[in-house]
Structure formats: C-alpha cells, structure tokens
C-alpha cells in the first residue's frame, strides 16, 4: 500500500514530461486552449520516417557510432587506469585522481573552444575522430570514475587463484578479469554512451554541423517551431537511451546509474 503510494509519487513526476512529447508528436491540429489535439495524425512521424528519414536516420547512426566508439575507447583506456586507481596505492595518487576526474566537473565548453583552432589545423575539426576526441575528454574520466569504484571492491586474488591453476596472463585477462568486472564495464560503457549521446555544444564546436548528431538536428529543428516534428524527434532521441538502460538494467543492480550526468 505504502509502496504503491511511493511508486506513484515517483512515477507521476517522472512520467509527466513525456506526456506533451507523445501528444504533440501525434497532433495534427491542436489549438490553444483545447486540452487534447483536435485532430490526431501521423504527419510528424511521417516526416521523421519518410520525408526526412534519411537525414534523421543518418544523424541517428552518426550519434550512435560516435557514442559507441567513444565508449569503446574510453573502456580501453579506462580499464587499466581504473585498475591502477582502485587497486594500487602509489605516491601522488590523489593528484593523478584529481587530474583524471577534474574534467567531470569542468564544462566541456571551455575545452572545446580552446581546442577548436588546433583541431582545424590538424584536420581534426569536422571529422569523426575530432568529435570522438572531444567527447573522450569527459567520457574517459567518467569511465575511470566508475571502474575505479569497481576495482576498489575487486579481489585480485581471483587472478592469483587462476594463475595458480595454470592460467596464462592472457587467459587471466580474458577469462577472469574481464568477466569479473563485466557489470562495471557495462555501466561504464552506458555512462560514456549516454554522455556522448546527449552532448550538444562541444559536438557543434568541433563537428561544425558536419557531424550531424541528433542533438544538433533537434536544436536546428527547435527553431522551426514545428512542435509535432520536434516532439517526434525528441522521442526518437530518447528511445535508444531508454533501450540501453533497459538492456543493462540487470547489470546496474541496486546502485543503478549512480553518478551519470
């Protein structure tokens, strides 16, 4: 009973903002002050899937590959770093940690502005790689942050046990270490993915509109005032993120997406 009340008091405020998005995306004619659209229709969805389909699909895949590549690189660099910070003690650890985790707090705006000119010179601006690099500046620290937490609860004796049972270092890495930290890897990957997925300004500065990601497309659509289309694209924008969340819900466990921004 009490639990149901609690559930509702969370569900309603969380769910309410989705209501106008859904309603608008199906609205054909909806004049103020009628409560529900006077006429429902698929114009907006038709625009999203047919008229502008290739553009929206294109930006969907740009966003997606950007986020996936960023997440993968973050993991490749972040797993060793997280291990060092979570498992080892060494002089200067605090300072290194500050360095590696500071980009979580500093807004990406300043870094992107600073790097832009040099990225242009090195032909990195408006390129996939350039945008991946700028996303890495804040995704990698988040990955390290998550994996540090995982590794500080990690028992390296599992590796020693495997080695004593005859496992080579390579076998240990792939058969023991990675499976053991798999939940952490999934969470970290999800973090990176979501951060990169929803990034607007730094993508715009470095990608210059050429890297047409969903947020950039949505932003330019917002100027159109075509509310049904903006609502439909917004929903398209949320959907993969929700899918990723649902898919990894099992690994997130009780701590959930602790620390995602």
């Amino acid at each position, binding site marked *: 009973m009490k639990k149901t009340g609690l559930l509702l008091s969370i569900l309603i405020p969380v769910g309410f903002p989705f209501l106008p998005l859904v309603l608008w995306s199906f609205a054909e004619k909806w004049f103020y002050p009628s409560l529900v659209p006077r006429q429902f229709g698929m114009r907006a969805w038709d625009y999203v899937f047919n008229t502008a389909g290739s553009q929206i699909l294109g930006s969907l895949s740009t966003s997606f590959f950007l986020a996936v590549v960023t997440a993968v690189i973050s993991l490749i660099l972040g797993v060793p770093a997280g291990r060092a910070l979570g498992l080892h003690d060494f002089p200067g650890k605090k300072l290194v940690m500050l360095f590696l985790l500071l980009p979580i707090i500093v807004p990406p705006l300043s870094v992107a502005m600073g790097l832009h000119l040099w990225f242009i010179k090195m032909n990195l601006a408006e390129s996939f790689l350039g945008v991946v690099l700028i996303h890495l500046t804040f995704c990698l620290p988040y990955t390290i942050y998550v994996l540090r937490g995982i590794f500080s609860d990690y028992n390296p004796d*599992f590796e020693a046990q495997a*080695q*004593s049972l005859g*496992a080579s270092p390579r*076998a240990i890495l792939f058969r023991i270490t990675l*499976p053991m930290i798999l939940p952490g890897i999934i969470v970290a990957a999800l973090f990176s993915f979501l951060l990169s997925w929803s990034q607007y300004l730094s993508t715009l500065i470095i990608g210059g509109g050429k890297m047409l990601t969903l947020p950039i497309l949505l932003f330019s659509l917002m100027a159109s005032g075509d509310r049904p289309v903006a609502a439909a694209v917004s929903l398209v924008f949320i959907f993969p993120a929700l899918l990723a969340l649902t898919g990894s819900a099992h690994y997130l466990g009780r701590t959930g997406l602790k620390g995602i921004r």
Partner: protein
Amino acid sequence: MERLGLRKLTIQYGSTTVIRDLHLSIQDGELVSLLGPSGAGKTTILKTIAGLLPPSDGKIYIDGKCVNHLPAEKRDAVLIFQKPLLFPFLNVNQNIGFGLKMRHVDRKTAVRKIERILEITGLNGLGTRKIHQLSGGQQQRVALARGLILEPAILLLDEPLSNLDPGLRGQMRDLICSLQTQTKTTMLFVTHDQSEALSISDRVCLLLDGKLRQSGTPQELFYHPADQDVARFFGCDNILPCQTFLPEQSPNGRKELFAIRPEDIEIRTNNRNQDCIDKSWFNGTVEKIIFEGQLTKLTVSTSPGYDLTVLCRRPSFHPGQSVYLRFPKERIHYFQEPPEES
C-alpha cells in the same frame, strides 16, 4: 622423494621482512601443516611457493627443480585460497575444469576426471549448479576439487576451513584427511588453529614472528616445545623458574625455567592431610574458577607469588579455597636452550 624444498627463503614487502631464512622440506605424500598466529606470514609463504610473490632471497625447489624463475602458471604447485574464490560466472563443472582447460586437456579426459573428483569430494549431482546456489561448505569443497583435479606435485591449502561453521569444519577436516589418504597428494596445510593443525597433520611447523620455530609431530610440539613462545602458543601458561619451584630437581644449573601444562598439574583440597606429607606438594589458593565444559580452568595463586593456570575435570573447589598442588616429575618440561629475552 622431496616434493617441496625451501632453502633460506626470505620474503619482504617493500623494506619490511616478513619471512627470514626459512628452511622446509616436504616429502612425497606428507600432509604438513604450517601453524602460526594471524599475521605470521603464512599466506605470504604459500603465495611465494606458488609463484605469486617473488622471494627476496633463497631458493624454492619443487620436485627437486629450482622454480624461482618460473611464473606461477608453470609451477606444479596449486594454491587454494582461504576464501573459495570460485569464478562466479562459471558453474561447478567449469570451475573444477578450469585448470584442465588451461592445460588444454582434451574434453573427454576432463569430463572423466571431473566426474571422479565430484564423486570423491561428495559433490555428485551439483556439477551444473551456479556458484551462488552452493552453501559455504560446498563452495569450499569445489575449491578443493579444483586444485586436487590437477594432481599437482604439492597442494597448498590456505586456511581452507576458517570460513566454515564449526560443524562443517569437522566434516571438511575429515574430508581433507581422507582425500589425502586416497589420492596421496602431498599437502601443505596452513592454519592458525592449533587443534586443527594437531589433529590433521603428519607434521606441524610452527611459524612465529617470521621464523620457523619448531617442526615435528603434533605430540612433539605440544609436549616438548622448543621454547617459551612455542609453549605459550600451545596454551601452556605455566612457565616458571626452576629455582623457586624445583630447587633440588633442577638437573643442571643452566636450566632456569621449566614449563608445566595446566592439565598436568595435580591439585587437591588440603584437608585430607594424610596424603599431603610428600614434600613435592605445595600450597596455593584458588582465585578464579571458569567452567569451560570438558575442563574447568582454575587460577591458583601460590606462595612464591606466581599465578598458576590449572585445568581439571569436574573440580569441587570454590574461590578462596586453599589447595595443594604438585608437579608430576615426568610432566615437567625443561627448555633445551636458555630462553631468550622478550
């Protein structure tokens, strides 16, 4: 044949020496226990033998070959950790077969071996269980099976029983004993529990302060401790000066202290005068009586000013009572060497 040999083994963490100049030799088929209090460095030794820690000095021989420069996975010594450390993403069979897989043993042989080991460790039918579906005792048995199946030259067991309930502990102790008899696996068994070490092993090695203090049969260590610390470790609190208690018995001037086990002291009420004329009896007062079940522990203060611990069965004393005590001659243990200052 010597399965394991340690020669002048010294192990350091950074600059602190944990183990110094350790010598140890274990023969084929022996079950040796390494006994020591918490923090003595037992795990450290096992890890070094297994190749998980580099020694700072000394040599390690397995089956007569020096293995100092072999990595852990190439040594024929398998370490079983204190916690079962089963891989949670593998089932029981896969856990037990892990080592075989690492050695590329073919599937058929592996399956046969796993079946046999499940049998002798009493895990039949649990092969396809997930790890979290096992009880603590079952997990520990899987961990044992995982090591045993590799038939290593030596199996190193790090307090495999300390995480178990007292009831289970007895069962597992028996299981290890019977496995050892069945498979003739040479084992080095680490524990901090003396009764475990005394009851399970052919030979006990006592480790105190990073040094091997004494090595011998359980009875040797228990009844003939090499020094005061060993005696105290085995619960012999009564370490007394010869001069005060045994002025004439003292066999030669060099022996200054002797030990007598609490359960070896004879104690009587001093109202039955007829027997107490013997000069070997002396006076004491009962200070404290603690019933501990099979034995009751008395603290008795003696006239020379020493508090003695006496263990006896079903005593009929009460605190404050005056008693007679006697040290049976054959139970007195003189230390071989002059005791060190501590």
